[in-house]
């Protein structure tokens, strides 16, 4: 990007703006062919994301704080509980502080839910859809699958389920990654750092790979498969050197979801961070009955980066954050 450009100018070229339009048209056709309903949910919410790894952006209306959604998940699950059947949505989501080569504080997410589907089915969905979208200009080979444990062990040599903190620090160090200073690091944080700085760059960018069965501590809103170790029924799709999509076999147990929310909110308070109101509307929807379902969130901007062979997210956005 030319830094001398006047700030009114779009960040993306006209060619990439056209590519985005083509992708949007094509994905709507894909969902339409399967009878999956397009929905449009509010961006502002009374509840904020409780996930300690997300930072909400708030807006004030009538003396009351509202939050720009970090994902449409809550509203879409309320629709599912309300009887919508299979749904999809393309929308902007907002996350404070996320800015970098692969991050913009506001980005475009494609999210969809299907009733009665398990992770395997959703991986098939993701492969079918992304292969279709990428066939526009950069066809993908058939996708690979690996468990989180095998992937981490294969690339870093450490077992993510059993390695202690010093072992993880050593593994990072041997790949030239300095561990965070200041606070005593937690296992999950070091695993996150390993994944983002060692594993992701080691993956073949041209080979899509599903990674499934994350540690239960990284379940977010996914169900946990009991066992030793317990496994999160969650997958991520990587290609183009990036995480492109994330899928859950959705947690439908209101009590368990309530416990996770409370745990996360407590953690935020302990870390001296902003504690948003709990998402009680979602808990009420789960109590009323969320049908058995799986859901996927896919980063459309990153998919465009892959399609266009571009390695800075700003180049696929009409106006990146610095021009917002």
């Amino acid at each position: 990007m030319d830094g001398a450009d006047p700030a009114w100018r779009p960040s993306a070229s006209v060619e990439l703006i056209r590519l985005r339009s083509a992708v949007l048209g094509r994905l709507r056709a894909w969902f339409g062919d399967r009878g999956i309903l397009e929905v449009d949910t509010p961006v502002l919410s009374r509840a904020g994301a409780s996930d300690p790894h997300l930072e909400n952006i708030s807006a004030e209306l009538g003396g009351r704080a509202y939050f720009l959604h970090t994902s449409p998940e809550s509203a879409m699950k309320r629709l599912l509980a309300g009887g919508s059947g299979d749904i999809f949505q393309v929308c902007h989501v907002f996350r404070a502080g996320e800015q970098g080569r692969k991050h913009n504080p506001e980005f475009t997410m494609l999210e969809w839910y299907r009733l009665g589907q398990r992770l395997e089915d959703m991986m098939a969905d993701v492969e079918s859809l992304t292969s279709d979208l990428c066939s526009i200009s950069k066809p993908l080979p058939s996708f690979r699958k690996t468990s989180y444990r095998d992937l981490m062990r294969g690339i870093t040599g450490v077992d993510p389920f059993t390695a202690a903190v010093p072992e993880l620090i050593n593994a990072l160090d041997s790949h030239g990654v300095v561990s965070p200073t200041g606070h005593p690091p937690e296992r999950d944080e070091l695993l996150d750092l390993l994944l983002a700085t060692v594993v992701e760059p080691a993956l073949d960018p041209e080979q899509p790979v599903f990674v499934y069965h994350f540690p239960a501590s990284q379940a977010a809103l996914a169900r946990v498969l009991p066992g030793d170790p317990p496994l999160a029924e969650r997958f991520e799709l990587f290609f183009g050197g990036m995480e492109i999509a994330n899928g859950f076999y959705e947690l439908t147990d209101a009590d368990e979801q309530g416990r996770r929310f409370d745990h996360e909110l407590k953690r935020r308070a302990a870390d001296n961070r902003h504690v948003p109101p709990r998402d009680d509307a979602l808990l009420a929807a789960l109590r009323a009955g969320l049908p058995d379902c799986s859901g996927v969130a896919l980063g459309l901007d990153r998919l465009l980066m892959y399609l266009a062979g571009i390695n800075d997210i700003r180049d696929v956005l009409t106006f990146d954050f610095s021009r917002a």
Partner: protein
Amino acid sequence: MASYSTNEFRSGLKILIDGDPFIIVENEFVKPGKGQAFNRVRIRNLKTGRVVDKTYKSGESVEAADVMDTEMQYLYSDGEFWHFMVPDTFEQYAADSNAVVDAKNWLKEQDHCQITLWNNVPLTVTPPNFVELKIVETDPGVRGDTAQGGVKPATLETGAVVKVPLFVEEGEVIRVDTRTGEYVSRVKD
């Protein structure tokens, strides 16, 4: 005390770590989808020049270093300190020998230099990229040898010794690139 959140990290930002001022050379934001975000930074110690890598959990704060670059005019040296003045305000600053260690060979009175102030005390002095200095001592020139690549040492009025072409004479003024310490050209009056 002012501080910066990792959200504000960008190259050029000056931060204080363990009592030393550092400048951010590179900043990379990394975050796995559902996990902890980090800022990986490459920073340079402004006192020692050493470059180190650090990783911060995003959202952490780091103390700001009160470091500022100011253009000043070099006045004189009293042997212990090198004295500079801000042209607009006539404010004067004294730099010690540590601050001028790389610059002192190129400092000519009246020249404008960049002074990096830390807590309002000169930390480093950067001379102009090009300076014009008089040769006070060099072997006699070799007539007619203007095309050959031969060089000889020449001592300049500041005490610096640079390699100059054989045809350059004592008493002449030459232009030197202070970043490389190399002769550029003769300066004709």
